[in-house]
């Protein structure tokens, strides 16, 4: 495959991993986060430290990065998840920026100058495999009772509590899993770019991830996949328009939000069953129409 296209796909895959995690948190649990770049940074720097400084193999290093990101998220979660409404969102925003600033000042990791010389372990194959595993685990989780509990929390907190669901616990679990996914994405990114710089994990990165989740449709894994592929490759496809590409990118997002406020997929999934149902519904509609005449 063309090296350039492969590169775009790898970047989409890295974004997708973070988006899958955020999709669980925002789309299925109903919590907005503007600090996921922070978890990516923690995962990325930890994984890179493992491979560069401790010579640990790539996959275990990724997992360690995910675990560290997850643990940090647990700390944030315990402190902020009891807050109601938008306060959690604001707390994550603060966390993301704080993480970036701390890394800016950590000379051990190169500080604001960045950290070059990370081995290039990430390739097309392992990105695809990791994404597929991530997808399957997430889909299984969402179809289970734990996933249903998270969706219930999103829909109606009080009713969830009355139905025996520990709302705080499920918000925390969702946040931790979500941060682990972001951590893996960060690790993949570190070993793809072979260079880390705190600037890569600024607020714009967090916003980009949230935009992808909303663009694809809250509460839909297929939507997140589609969103990550489209929105990561769009600026690249539009590279020919140089200065105008970000304008077009912005317009594309705005148009989707106006014409389909529920996002591209809007809570639906691409599965054989759903496709069959869609087909059946269309047929029924047509039958009803002809009967109406």
């Amino acid at each position, binding site marked *: 495959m063309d090296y350039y296209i492969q590169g775009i796909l790898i970047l989409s895959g890295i974004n997708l991993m973070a988006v899958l995690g955020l999709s669980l948190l925002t789309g299925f649990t109903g919590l907005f986060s503007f600090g996921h770049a922070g978890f990516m940074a923690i995962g990325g720097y930890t994984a890179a430290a493992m491979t560069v400084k401790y010579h640990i193999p790539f996959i275990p290093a990724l997992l360690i990065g995910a675990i560290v990101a997850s643990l940090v998220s647990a700390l944030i979660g315990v402190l902020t998840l009891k807050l109601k409404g938008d306060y959690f969102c604001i707390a994550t925003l603060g966390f993301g920026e704080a993480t970036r600033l701390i890394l800016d000042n950590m000379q051990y990791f190169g500080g604001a100058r960045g950290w070059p010389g990370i081995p290039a372990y990430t390739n097309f194959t392992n990105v695809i495999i990791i994404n597929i595993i991530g997808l399957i*685990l*997430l889909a*299984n*989780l969402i*179809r*289970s*009772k*734990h*996933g*249903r*509990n998270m*969706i*219930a929390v999103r*829909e*109606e907190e*009080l*009713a*969830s*509590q*009355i*139905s*025996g*669901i*520990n*709302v705080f616990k499920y918000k925390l*679990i969702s946040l931790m899993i979500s941060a682990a996914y972001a951590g893996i994405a960060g690790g993949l990114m570190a070993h793809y770019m072979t260079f880390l710089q705190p600037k890569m994990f600024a607020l714009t990165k967090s916003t980009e991830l949230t935009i992808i989740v909303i663009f694809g449709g809250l509460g839909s894994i297929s939507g997140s996949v589609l969103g990550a592929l489209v929105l990561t490759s769009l600026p690249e496809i539009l590279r020919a328009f140089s200065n105008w590409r970000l304008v077009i990118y912005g317009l594309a997002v705005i148009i989707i939000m106006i014409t389909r406020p529920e996002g591209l997929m809007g*809570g639906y999934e691409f599965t054989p069953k759903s496709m069959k149902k869609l087909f059946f519904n269309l047929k029924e509609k047509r039958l009803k129409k002809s009967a109406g005449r």
Partner: protein
Amino acid sequence: MNLLEMKNVTKHFGGLTAVSNVNFEIEKESITGLIGPNGAGKTTIFNLITGVYKVTEGKITFDGKDITNKEPYIIAEMGITRTFQNIRLFKKLSVYENVLTACQYNANYNLLEAMLYLPRCKNQEKQLKEQAEHLLEIIGLIDRKDFIANNLPYGLQRRLEIARALSLNPKLLLLDEPAAGMNPDETAQLMNLIYDIRKKFNLSILIIDHHMDLVMGICEKIMVLNFGCKLAEGTPIEIQSNPKVIEAYLGVEG
């Protein structure tokens, strides 16, 4: 033995006393009514029993265990569930998903088993799905199982909320104005449903309602609240002839 006991329960909201010094018992497998004028503190009592509000003073025991100020989800797991005055369904989910979500009292597979879809998860999920469908059949919603909850007619939304509460296999069901906004015909259907539920699930029911024919018709015992205090307690006939109750509801001349 009594299923639920409230001893000297008081609830203050700042300077306002919503419930003051209420003593109250619910017997096993009984249907009890809770009536009173608007603002008497009926729903506050429900919120205190289910742990949504914290008790200021007093003690609530359920099935011999102290449940005062426990978290709502723990109380739900112990066997008290409720419906709400203003229906609180999982609006965007289907009827089936609403019931399935609450149907989990004997599924104990953990997160990892769920993510890897291991046999224990698979088997228990299958069981849960059967339970949910069985419950929908009993409650008479099986033919609308794929409807989105929000699109159901009002009466059926109430019914679904009761089904969701029942899927936790409760020992005590609290119904907060189940007949609100229903016509006499629907109210009669609801009465039958409540009788049915008690028979099939062997549970106790506590009802708040303003429809006197419903409350007087099905309750074995009634408690009357007024301004947060217990005004009277007794059988429907005793309550109907109690001068204090008549005064609270109709006022007194002169």
